[in-house]
């Protein structure tokens, strides 16, 4: 199997690439150093239709294809991993609506997200339930036509800047994962509290929030799917979003490698460019080979998501696992190629190495990806 990008996908990618190189790349170091959410980049993406990539045209978007989303995330991540999450999490936070929402819900909730008027977020993890998502404690109790939500969600990317938050909560406490339901919280009507923002190793410009829900009222019309269908929805969403994390990891690795490749061609030691040394050349060859392998796996997984292939769960997990492990190794090696300069903040590769680590952890740690893959193999 091979993946061929359509002319339309290539056009979208090229637009994003140009915009990113002109407007995002020059901001990346500052975004990392200040640790502030780049609202200007969000606006830039909204104005240029980039936040519409995760949505089909009928819901106000321009694509809805996982392949196109991955192309966009990859391009942005080459320059700035924090900014790439603006697209990646717009997709993650919207997938529950696109996957499990009714036609009415999609028509009502998606257009403001596709236009970038609102930012989406996805709230599954809790302080006491990370990998064991089914152990969540957030409760949703039904009163007439609305639910009242109480609980705490942890490590919620963009939880502080989002206008639309998909929250998973127990509607049938005491039952296992079959008691979990999914809700869409619109901030004006169902306001949540941001208890704290984390300082992190990397992706510092992407706010990671702890969210507290205290008697938050949500209309029953904002429940996605049936009561008890939440856990299934959560997993179906992660299946679809994981290639995007793979694409982010891929972009981070490519960004670091582009920089390091130029550097070794310029840097002179022993009277010649260090790129002429075989020890360096072997590193370059290994890095490029790993990137190429990851790229194929990521787009193969995205193609399977678009085709709703039977084995998409397994391949999406493989893409996320392989690409993120690759990005960690590759960025670590790229810092090495720059030597002392790689370690200081005047150069971008140490930021990319710090940014790479989280791709091995979020949207299911790589241990969880292995569990998912093994389960698919042994089924």
């Amino acid at each position, binding site marked *: 199997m091979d993946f061929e990008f359509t002319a339309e996908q290539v056009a979208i990618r090229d637009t994003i690439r140009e915009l990113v190189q002109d407007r995002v790349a020059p901001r990346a170091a500052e975004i990392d150093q200040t640790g502030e959410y780049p609202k200007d980049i969000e606006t830039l993406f909204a104005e240029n239709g980039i936040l519409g990539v995760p949505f089909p045209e009928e819901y106000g978007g321009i694509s809805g294809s996982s392949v196109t989303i991955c192309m966009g995330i990859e391009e942005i991540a080459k320059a700035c991993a924090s900014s790439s999450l603006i697209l990646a999490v717009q997709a993650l936070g919207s997938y529950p609506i696109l996957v499990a929402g009714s036609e009415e819900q999609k028509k009502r909730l998606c257009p403001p997200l596709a236009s970038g008027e609102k930012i989406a977020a996805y709230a599954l*993890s809790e302080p006491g339930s*990370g*990998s064991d998502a089914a152990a969540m404690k957030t409760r949703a109790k039904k009163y007439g036509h609305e639910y009242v939500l109480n609980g705490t969600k*942890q*490590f919620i990317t963009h939880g502080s800047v989002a206008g639309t938050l998909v929250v998973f909560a127990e509607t049938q406490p005491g039952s296992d994962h079959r008691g979990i339901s999914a809700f869409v919280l619109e901030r004006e009507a169902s306001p949540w509290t941001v208890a704290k923002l*984390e*300082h*992190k*190793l*990397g992706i510092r410009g992407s706010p990671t929030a702890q969210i507290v829900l205290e008697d938050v009222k949500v209309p029953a019309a904002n429940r996605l799917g049936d009561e008890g269908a939440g856990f299934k929805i959560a997993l179906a969403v992660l299946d679809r979003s994981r290639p995007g994390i793979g694409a982010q990891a891929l972009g981070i690795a490519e960004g670091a490698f582009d920089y390091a490749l130029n550097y070794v061609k310029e840097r*002179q*030691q*022993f*009277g010649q460019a*260090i790129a002429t040394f075989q*020890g*360096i050349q072997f590193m370059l060859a290994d890095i490029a080979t790993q990137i190429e392998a990851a790229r194929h796996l990521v787009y193969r997984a995205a193609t399977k998501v678009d085709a709703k292939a039977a084995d998409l769960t397994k391949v999406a997990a493989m893409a996320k696992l392989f690409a993120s492990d690759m990005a*960690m190794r590759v960025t*670590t090696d790229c*810092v*090495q190629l720059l*030597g*002392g300069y*790689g*370690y*200081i*903040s*005047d150069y971008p590769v*140490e930021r990319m*190495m*710090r940014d790479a*680590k*989280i791709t*091995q*952890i*979020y949207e299911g*740690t*790589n*241990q969880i990806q*292995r*569990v998912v893959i093994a389960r698919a193999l042994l089924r």
Partner: protein
Amino acid sequence: MRPLAAEVDRDHRFPAEAIKAAAESGLMGVLIPREYGGAGMDALAFAICIEELAQACAATAVIVDVHTSVGTEPILLFGDEDQKRKWLPQLASGQLLGAFALTEPASGSDAAALKMTARRNGSGYVLNGTKVFITNIGRAGLYVVFARTGPDEKAAGITAFLVPADADGVRIGQVFGKMGLNGSPTGELVLEDVNIPESHRLGREGHGFTIAMRALDSGRIGISGQALGIAQAAIDEARTLMRERGHENSKGDVDVLDRLAGQGDDFSLADMATRVESARLLAYRAAWLCSQGKPFTREASMSKLHCTDTAMQVALDALQIAGHEGAVAGSPFERHVRDAKALQIYEGSNQVQRIVIARELLKAG
């Protein structure tokens, strides 16, 4: 030192009180003979000291390590009696912090290509040039500086000098923001017409490169110790976390049958511990060879390469076990990752270690 580590990292603050405590405990003069006010211990003892310090705080460890090995040993090994009497007691007591200035912007791995000049001027020398990536910058009282005295463009033209920080013309350039080791300042040392008397020249003219290489040989033992300390700290924290998560049953024993479904992290922990144990043996052997006065260049490079690669991998694996909470700033897991990376680069990048090892292996005879 341990309670300071997170704060020193967060605030990019020199851990003055930790260094004072190290000095009071005699840790600044581990390698210096008793007659010069030191502890008179050997390379193995030194490696163990640095390992212990790095388990608590890698930034503190590198400050002490650079001071003790490359900052002090050149005087110990190559200084004349007057130089030893003048400088070693101050270094041993920690009254004076040492540093080592070899690297320049255009000469990193290719150290013999350095450009700093030392021009003869009457009975002394005038030094001019810029050094870069100098550990203990701004805090050191004495820099071991390598400069070119002869017309030879390669190693044979290099001479070592002792440059006091308060000499006229000594200036601190840029101090770098780094990925890790934030408590340990790294930056540029700029020398502008610095007059240095002949009594501050270390060894003969043209002997500087040999001094630098010998200093780095044993410096690599210190870096190995630092790597082991970081790796051990990462393992200990991962192990504590796994126990807290219930990887131990109520009797305090580990039942293999309870563990089968959770083998992923168990195997990772086992690999980490095995790697560190092998790295430790390699480091201690290099240190022992050095202590015995036997050749140890190859072993020191192997040790530096293996210990620092191990520290990087183990720090990453421990953070992976910790998951999200390990990536939050202030967590020791993410700090270990940022700290460990420097070790693969400094005191000879791991590429240079491979060059040294291969050269030693391919030598005739």
